[in-house]
């Protein structure tokens, strides 16, 4: 029944736009909330037999979706981050029409991402990538202010170049395999591994994915798009859209199409290490809170790539675990940034200070997210980083392991700077009258913080039951 994740939101977004729009505008928020909670519940109460069956066979909806453990983790992250973004939108977008449009786009983006994680066909993957990307472009520009439009334009341009690269690679693979399904392509690649054409197709495709994921030599668009986007859109974009369309796709394509050749591993390790180091140093020098979080995001994605680059079971599971953790705590940090933006009216860290006194919930959850990001036990971020570092050590990449450990200290440094400037200490002049953020934002941050703490505390249970089975993607 995996098709439900596609069909229910699609029918939902169509019903939202039927003639009785007046009524729908009022209920749209609850409608979308029920949709995302339904997805969370369905994914977390998974029974294996349920995912294997199709919808009524031979019916009008005759498509093939596939679900494995990696897909389940991604579906869970998609629904929880979308829910957070929805709650932030309720608090931050006051105009009713705008909010209605935003909720519609949020649902289409969720359909696109659900599609990306469930397809097993390289061209359908492209179609859903475009669905998610187009929804994201429009969500960034929802307020139509100048920086957001310009950030969106940069994002559109680079993302379009990335999809053109993927499409040319699809063209070459179609030439080689005669079909676009994962099975046919991987068979064709493994039958002629030394071909220049295959190598060219791989190189172009990986380049496109690096642009989409905002990794280091191709990261030009990411800080602008993240920091200029409307607050709820930046939660969704930073939390899940780039992770699904860049990083998840990379993991899926490398494991099920190209395989871990030594060249692929080397490139991934190099790009991952560069992203970790340069992202962290760039984050250190930022004054704008959202911009700093964007660079920190590049650095954390580097950890995922470097762990994945080892190609070992431990490395890949660690990478997937960090992908999940990063989606949760980065969206938590962006939710907090939205709360600060709403109440203090600025995200310039020089003008903030002492907000913990007036905004206790935001201050506490932000501290949890920062501890998790910089890898302090027993929070979730600690475990995934430790697994990645052990995997690097075991695979013999000792220099890379050292880079990962040392940059972890740097991560703690810039996040402590952020906390000290924004939340701790004496309250900055002019901010004495700030209140706690609206209820919706508090609910979002409490949910995300609870997930981070819960995954960290119940780490053995979560890791054995949900993360470890992901290793099945390594066995073709």
């Amino acid at each position, binding site marked *: 029944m995996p098709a439900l994740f596609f069909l229910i939101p699609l029918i939902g977004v169509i019903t939202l736009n039927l003639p009785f729009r007046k009524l729908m505008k009022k209920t749209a928020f609850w409608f979308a909330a029920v949709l995302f909670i339904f997805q969370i519940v369905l994914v977390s109460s998974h029974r294996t037999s349920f995912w294997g069956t199709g919808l009524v066979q031979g019916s009008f909806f005759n498509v093939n979706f596939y679900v494995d453990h990696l897909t389940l983790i991604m579906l869970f992250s998609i629904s929880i981050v979308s829910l957070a973004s929805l709650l932030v939108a309720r608090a931050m977008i006051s105009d009713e029409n705008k909010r209605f449009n935003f909720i519609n786009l949020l649902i289409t983006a969720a359909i696109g991402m659900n599609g990306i994680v469930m397809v097993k066909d390289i*061209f359908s993957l492209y*179609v859903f990538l*475009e669905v998610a990307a*187009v929804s994201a*472009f*429009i969500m960034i*520009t929802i307020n*139509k202010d*100048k*920086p957001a*439009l*310009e*950030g*969106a*334009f*940069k994002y*559109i*341009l680079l993302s*379009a*170049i990335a999809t*053109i690269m993927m*499409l*040319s690679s*699809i*063209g*070459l693979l*179609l*030439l080689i395999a*005669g*079909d*676009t399904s994962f099975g046919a392509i991987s068979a064709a690649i493994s039958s002629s591994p030394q071909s220049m054409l295959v190598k060219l197709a791989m190189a172009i495709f990986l380049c496109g994915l690096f642009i989409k994921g905002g990794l280091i030599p191709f990261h030009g668009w990411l800080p*602008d798009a993240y920091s*200029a986007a409307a607050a709820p859109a930046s939660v969704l974009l930073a939390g899940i859209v780039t992770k699904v369309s860049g990083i998840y796709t990379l993991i899926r394509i490398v494991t099920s199409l190209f395989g871990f050749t030594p060249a692929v591993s080397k490139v991934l390790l190099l790009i991952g290490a560069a992203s970790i180091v340069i992202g962290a140093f760039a984050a250190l020098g930022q004054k*704008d809170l959202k*911009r700093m979080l964007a660079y920190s995001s590049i650095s954390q994605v580097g950890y995922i790539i470097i762990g994945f680059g080892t190609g070992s079971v431990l490395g890949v599971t660690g990478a997937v675990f960090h992908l999940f953790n990063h989606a949760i705590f980065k969206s938590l940090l962006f939710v907090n940034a939205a709360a600060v933006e709403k109440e203090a009216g600025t995200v310039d860290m020089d003008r903030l200070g002492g907000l913990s006194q007036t905004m206790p919930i935001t201050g506490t959850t932000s501290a949890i997210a920062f501890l998790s990001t910089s890898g302090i036990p027993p929070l979730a971020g600690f475990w995934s980083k430790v697994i990645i570092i052990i995997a690097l050590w075991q695979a013999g990449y000792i220099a890379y392991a050292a880079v990962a450990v040392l940059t972890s200290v740097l991560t703690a440094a810039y996040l402590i700077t952020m906390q000290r400037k924004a939340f701790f200490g004496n309250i900055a002049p002019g901010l004495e009258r700030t209140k706690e953020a609206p209820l919706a934002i508090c609910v979002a941050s409490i949910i995300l913080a609870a997930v981070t703490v819960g995954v960290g505390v119940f780490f053995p249970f979560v890791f054995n039951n949900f993360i470890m089975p992901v290793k099945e993607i390594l066995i073709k």
Partner: protein
Amino acid sequence: MEANNIQLFSIFGIFIVMLFIAGLYCILMTRNMMRALIGLEILTKAVTVLLILAGYVTGNMAFAQSIVITLIIIEVVVIAITAGVILSIYRHTNSLDRSTIRDLKG
């Protein structure tokens, strides 16, 4: 048949690569946002020809056509959205110059 097709592919391939170079050069060199969009269109044209060619060479025309039709629909939506973004920027700045975008850097 096969040798003929491979020759056909390599001749078309040269022109497709030329089209790619033209589109990329246009996007990288211009400061006018509308022209960047035109460069994007040229890149898409190149990809369209590549997909059709791949279908023709492998005798898989029907499959390639159905893919290209989907691609064209997606292309229109993306171009329309991008044109909308450019027009909205124009309403703010009264210029199509992309150099104004640089004031986001920092």
